[in-house]
Every structure is written in structure tokens, then in C-alpha cells.
């Protein structure tokens, strides 16, 4: 990486962020903004440091609710996409239902789900799944349908079985689309898990935010939010990394 790119891609955004934090810090002191309205960054970081051990437990709960919902969205979404692409009858039967499920606001479903499924982590996993699965289904189905018809003709002219054509042509062809959906899904799964925790829980970062605000501990709420964002960024990065390992042909060469 050239010096110019290093400055452009890393230093400039870092400097912008640092400047914004400094301005924020200065504003809270200069205008004497009460802490519970808008805490300065220094107070937020101090609070996060105080909470570091307690945060581990809460972050862990939110993390596995998120990952559970994400895993479920793939386990359900990919087979659904295959069914939709291979069977016109199933497509007609399932697609309206999937779109309907998507158009119901998940935040509205969450209280009902928790009522039905009770407390604990499973209902949050389900909410995370419901929020996350749509892009997986739609993008994977788009990818599976994106195989050029000539390639399907080619496979057929060689008398290859449908399964072989699926494994060697259609599935790898759909991979970049699948990952596009998975990257959206992982960020949505975080939102789903937090929404689930908002509705009713005694663990997780969503619960910490909710209880912190009811006790006017705004700096705790802020530090939980930052932790949640970091978690979402790391998860997104992890999916991108897997994408690069699975689809190395998509990687652009440096300098291209």
C-alpha cells in the first residue's frame, strides 16, 4: 500500500473521527450540557472501562443470539432459495409468503413472539432470524437464477445430472450473491437480537441500553451502543473474510 493510499484510507478517517470526538468533548464542557442528556466521550469511555467485566457477559449473550439468528437465516434461507429457483410451483406458493413475512414490521412481531415463546435466548434468536433471513433468500435465489442459460445448455449437452450441474455450476455461480445477502443479514441479525432484548430480557447489550436509560445512565447506554456497533463491524468483517476465502476469484488485485 502506498503512503498516499495509507493517508487517504486510514489516516484521514481516523483524524476526522478524533476531531469529531474532541469537538463533542469540548461542547459538553463549554455549554455545560448535563451528563444524562449528552455525556462527553471521556465519561463514556470511563464508564465502558468500569463495566468491562460485566460487559463480557452481556456482549456474549447478544453475540450468540445474533450468530444463532444468522446461522438459522442461512440454514433456512439457502434451501428456500433452491426450492424457489428449481420449482415454479413452489415459487408461486412461497414467494408471496416470504414477501408478506418481510413486510410485517419485525419490531411489531417481537412482543408477540416473546409472549408465545417465553423468556430466554431462543425467542431473541428467532427474532434475529426473522429480521435477517429475507436478504439471504432473495440474493441466493437471484444468484442461482443468474447462471447463463448457455452454461445450463452446455451441461445438458454433456448429459450431466441436475445435481452435478447444481454443485459444479449453479451453486458456485450464486456464491457472490449469497455473500452479498449474508453481509446484509449479519448486520440485520444484530438489530434483531437487540430488538428481542428490548422487548423483554435481563441479559444482553440491548437490555443494558434499556435499563441504563431508565436510570438516566446515559454514558452506560452510549458505551453499550459503541460496543454493539463494534460487534456489528467485526461480524461484518468476518463474513467478508469468509467471502474472500470462499471466492478468491472475486478479489481485485492490489493496484487494479
Amino acid at each position, binding site marked *: 500500500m502506498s503512503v498516499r493510499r495509507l493517508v487517504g484510507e486510514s489516516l484521514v478517517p481516523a483524524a476526522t473521527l478524533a476531531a469529531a470526538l474532541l469537538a463533542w468533548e469540548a461542547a459538553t464542557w463549554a455549554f455545560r450540557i448535563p451528563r444524562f442528556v449528552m455525556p462527553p466521550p471521556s465519561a463514556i469511555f470511563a464508564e465502558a472501562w468500569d463495566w468491562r467485566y460485566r460487559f463480557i457477559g452481556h456482549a456474549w449473550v447478544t453475540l450468540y443470539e445474533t450468530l444463532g439468528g444468522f446461522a438459522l437465516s442461512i440454514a433456512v434461507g439457502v434451501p428456500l432459495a433452491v426450492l424457489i429457483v428449481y420449482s415454479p410451483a413452489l415459487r408461486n406458493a412461497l414467494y408471496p409468503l416470504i414477501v408478506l413475512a418481510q413486510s410485517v414490521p419485525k419490531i411489531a412481531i417481537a412482543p408477540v413472539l416473546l409472549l408465545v415463546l417465553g423468556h430466554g435466548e431462543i425467542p431473541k434468536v428467532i427474532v434475529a432470524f426473522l429480521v435477517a433471513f429475507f436478504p439471504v433468500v432473495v440474493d441466493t435465489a437471484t444468484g442461482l437464477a443468474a447462471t*447463463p442459460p*448457455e*452454461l445450463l*445448455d*452446455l*451441461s*445438458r*449437452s*454433456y*448429459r*450431466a445430472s441436475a445435481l*452435478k*450441474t447444481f454443485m*459444479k*455450476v449453479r451453486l*458456485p*455461480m450464486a*456464491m457472490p450473491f449469497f455473500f452479498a445477502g449474508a453481509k446484509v443479514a449479519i448486520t440485520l441479525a444484530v438489530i434483531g437480537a437487540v430488538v428481542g432484548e428490548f422487548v423483554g430480557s435481563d441479559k444482553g447489550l440491548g437490555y443494558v441500553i434499556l435499563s441504563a436509560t431508565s436510570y438516566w445512565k446515559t454514558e452506560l447506554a452510549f458505551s453499550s451502543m459503541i460496543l454493539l456497533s463494534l460487534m456489528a463491524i467485526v461480524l461484518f468483517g468476518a463474513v467478508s473474510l469468509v467471502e474472500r476465502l470462499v*471466492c*478468491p*476469484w472475486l478479489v481485485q488485485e492490489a493496484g487494479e
Partner: protein
Amino acid sequence: MIRLDAVGKTYRTRRGDLVRAVEDVTLHVEENEFVTLVGPSGCGKSTLLKLVAGLTPATHGTIAIRGQPVREPFGDVGFVFQQPVLLPWRSVLDNVLFSVEMLGRQPREYRKQALDLLELTGLSGFETKYPRELSGGMQQRVAICRALLPDPSLLLMDEPFGALDAMTREEMSLELLRIWEERRKTILFVTHSIPEAILLADRVVVMTPRPGRVARILPIALPRPRTMDLEFDARFKAASDEVRELIFARRLDR
């Protein structure tokens, strides 16, 4: 080798209309003959290739290859399309091996031949590259290698050079002739280009559109090996005038 007798293909569109893509096509192709099909868009040339490959059944007439009626895909063909349609996740070498893999043969046993084919088409040194690292002409060469690797007796080419720029296109035509001299095959070659059709062919099948019919089958008696200079040959000119007249005269009638 290929016998098409009074072949017709009618299909139903999604809206339920019947479309006659091909009608009453009779064509007998000899073993190792190079036949080009030329005509405007919509004259069913591509449909004809699919019929010969057994990818779609004829609604009228009979198609037979070496006396065997064609009812389903039979594996002994190589297909080259207008787009190279390579697999972007496979290296050049693995793309060439794709055909034998899909035929259910052992790719390991074809490695040497695949490398030979890449050398024959001037792609030595590119074996480990991804298709996106290659130019359009080079990608189409890989597609041709892929089609040739299982050594099919029949090569079906659907406007294989149609997406290439004019210079690459001429180069590829001559290269195809060179490959064909070395590895004789029966070739059915669809094109929009009249000079290309004449340059390559033993016989040119001129087709007219909607429904696709054979207007005339023109033997090309030009000597081989052929070069670009032939375009200035009087016989080449006469043949291309005849083809042009067949295609455009019909158009004016309508």
C-alpha cells in the same frame, strides 16, 4: 454424418402464442465437413444447433447423427457460444477440464491434452489465470479448448466470434481453420457475417427468417488452406454477392 430431414420447430411463448422458429429444414452434413449457417436475426439458426445437440426436440421431421435418431443430448458434441461463458472461479486449465468433468470422465487423464490444446491456441503460460484476467478473444479460445478437449466428433458454434472486435474476429477465424486442419471435426457454425461464413465453409447454408427456412445451400470451392487474401478472389466476391442477394432480396419482398 448429420441428417436433418424436413425438420421443423414450433414453440409456445409464455403468452401462449405459437412461434415457428424453424420450418422444413433439410440438410445433410458429411463427416468432417465445415458448414456455416448464415442469415439475419430470427431465422432460427441457434434453434437449429440446439435441435442437433438434442437439447430441444423437433416438432416435425427427423434428425439423425450417424444413423442414430437424436432424441436427447448424446454427449459427443462441443458447444461454443457467442459469450465464452467460462466459470469465473476456475483457472483457465480447470475451465478447459470442465467439459470432461461434466461428461463424467477423469479430469486427471486429460491434463496433458488440455495443456496441448492451450498451447495450440497460444494460451501457454495462462493456465493458472482466472478468466477475468484474459481478453475477450483469449476467453473465447479457452471456450474452444473446453469444447475440443473431449474430442467430440461434432462441434456446434453459435456466433462464436460475434462479440469480438473486427480484428480479433479475423484472427480467430483463421485460427479456427488452422485448428480444424489439425483436428478434423464436423463443424456447424452459425454467423451473421457473410465474409466469415464464406471464408470458413465447405458449404454455406443461407437462411431466411420467420420461420427459419433454408434459402439455398452454396458450395464454396475455394482452395484450402485459406487466408484473408481470399476476400479479393473473384469466386469469393461472387459467393458473397449471391448470399447477400438471397438475404436482402427476400427482405425487400416483404
